[in-house]
């Protein structure tokens, strides 16, 4: 990533503090629309940019938490060419089912989400850790800081882990999370999402992201989702409904494949590890 003149100008023009209670969705949407126009112009000259902007003023919390200096290019070396190893010692297979962690069945739409984790060249990322966390069906997290007055579900924590299999495939059984309000601006709502944490075969492939559900009416309004300015890249975060994953009289099914960056070591080197 490089910080272009256009980006720094946008930052200077943006508010440096926020009054979350008084900023309206219309004002945030106007900022989002303006940044979208900028991107369409830049895309014609500079090409597609598929990563999220770190400096995205409509997401107010990013204002003081993004680096202002260009990221330094580094060639990965030493430990950076490897990732930590996780194994069956680390993860119990039952952790992949978020609906069986308590005495009863959680409320909501039961679903399976599954997909394949590959590197930038399409090679499967085998036997590597995938972690997820999410709100319950009412849009409430089991977290002290979540004060949204929606019910806590005593049968749902919303945390899961699994290892990808020999083909790079992960699979979780869970409940469809609800959308929830947040304090970025007045009447701000996040589209329903599941947080995903992924490791690759190199340290440099580390990824934390969010998976969304198709057709969410909140996409256009959400500054976190819109911080990825390229539509095709944003689409990469949306799972697709897959009737072949859906199970008869049991649950709906979604498929979401994940592409990590890079892969600096050759497959032969990876086999030797």
């Amino acid at each position, binding site marked *: 990533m490089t910080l272009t003149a256009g980006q720094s100008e946008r930052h200077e023009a943006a508010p440096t503090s926020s009054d979350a209670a008084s900023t309206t969705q219309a004002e945030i949407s106007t900022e989002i629309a303006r940044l979208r126009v900028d991107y369409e112009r830049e895309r014609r000259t500079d090409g597609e940019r598929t990563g999220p902007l770190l400096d995205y003023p409509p997401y107010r919390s990013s204002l003081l938490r993004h680096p202002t200096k260009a990221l330094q290019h580094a060639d990965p070396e030493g430990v950076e060419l490897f990732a930590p190893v996780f194994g069956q010692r680390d*993860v119990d297979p039952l952790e992949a089912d978020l609906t069986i962690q308590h005495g009863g069945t959680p409320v909501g739409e039961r679903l399976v989400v599954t997909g394949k984790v590959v590197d930038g060249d399409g090679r499967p990322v085998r036997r590597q850790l995938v972690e997820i966390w999410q709100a319950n069906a009412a849009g409430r997290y089991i977290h002290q800081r979540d004060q949204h007055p929606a019910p806590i579900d005593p049968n749902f924590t919303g945390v899961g882990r699994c290892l990808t299999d020999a083909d790079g495939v992960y699979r979780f059984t869970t409940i469809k999370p609800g959308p929830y309000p947040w304090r970025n601006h007045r009447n701000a709502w996040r589209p329903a999402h599941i947080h995903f944490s992924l490791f690759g075969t190199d340290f440099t492939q580390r990824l934390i992201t969010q998976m969304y559900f198709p057709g969410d009416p909140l996409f256009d309004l959400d500054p976190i989702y819109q911080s990825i300015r390229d539509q*095709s890249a944003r689409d990469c975060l949306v799972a697709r409904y897959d009737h072949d994953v859906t199970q008869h009289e049991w649950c709906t099914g979604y498929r979401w494949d994940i592409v990590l960056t890079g892969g600096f070591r050759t497959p032969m080197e990876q086999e030797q590890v």
Partner: protein
Amino acid sequence: MNALVPTPGQTVGPFFGYALPYPGDAALVPPGTPGAIQLRGRVLDGRGQPVPDALLELWQAGPDGSVVQQPGSLRRDGWTFTGWGRASTDNEGRYSFTTLPPGTAPGSTAPFFALTVFARGLLDRLFTRAYLPVEDGALDRDPLLAALPQDRRDSLIATRAGSGYVFDVVLQGDGETVFLTYPGQPPR
């Protein structure tokens, strides 16, 4: 490098605290282990205020420079050094790892901790290195450090303190930490 479009990152958000931390996450070795050190510091925002909802991950070589490829980071057995850990910041933005000092890994010039930084408000993870303040000339030979102006270079070198090292992560502004991008990272 990438035949496929990499899946974009998104912020870790505010609610990871019940999901990603786990018992023993920041203790790569049990406290009291002979040779154990502490790597600690603060995560600060653009106004110098502590960031209480950040998460750091550490990945390092063993003291002999070997790259460890052992499972067990999530359920530590007290004996296996896995080279990986995770630490949340507290209300004062402080984090702390208990670990062993890294040696110089094959292909590296100087010993460092590889760090990944996540936080609410940070739209994608950041990578950096915390170099040990070794005095054998290795830091002067290190290609990354050599490419940086002096004032920025210092942001990557931990300082010795008590039974370990201090390394602050400054997300923005005066003393901003040098964050890294590697070949093949998606353009923003």
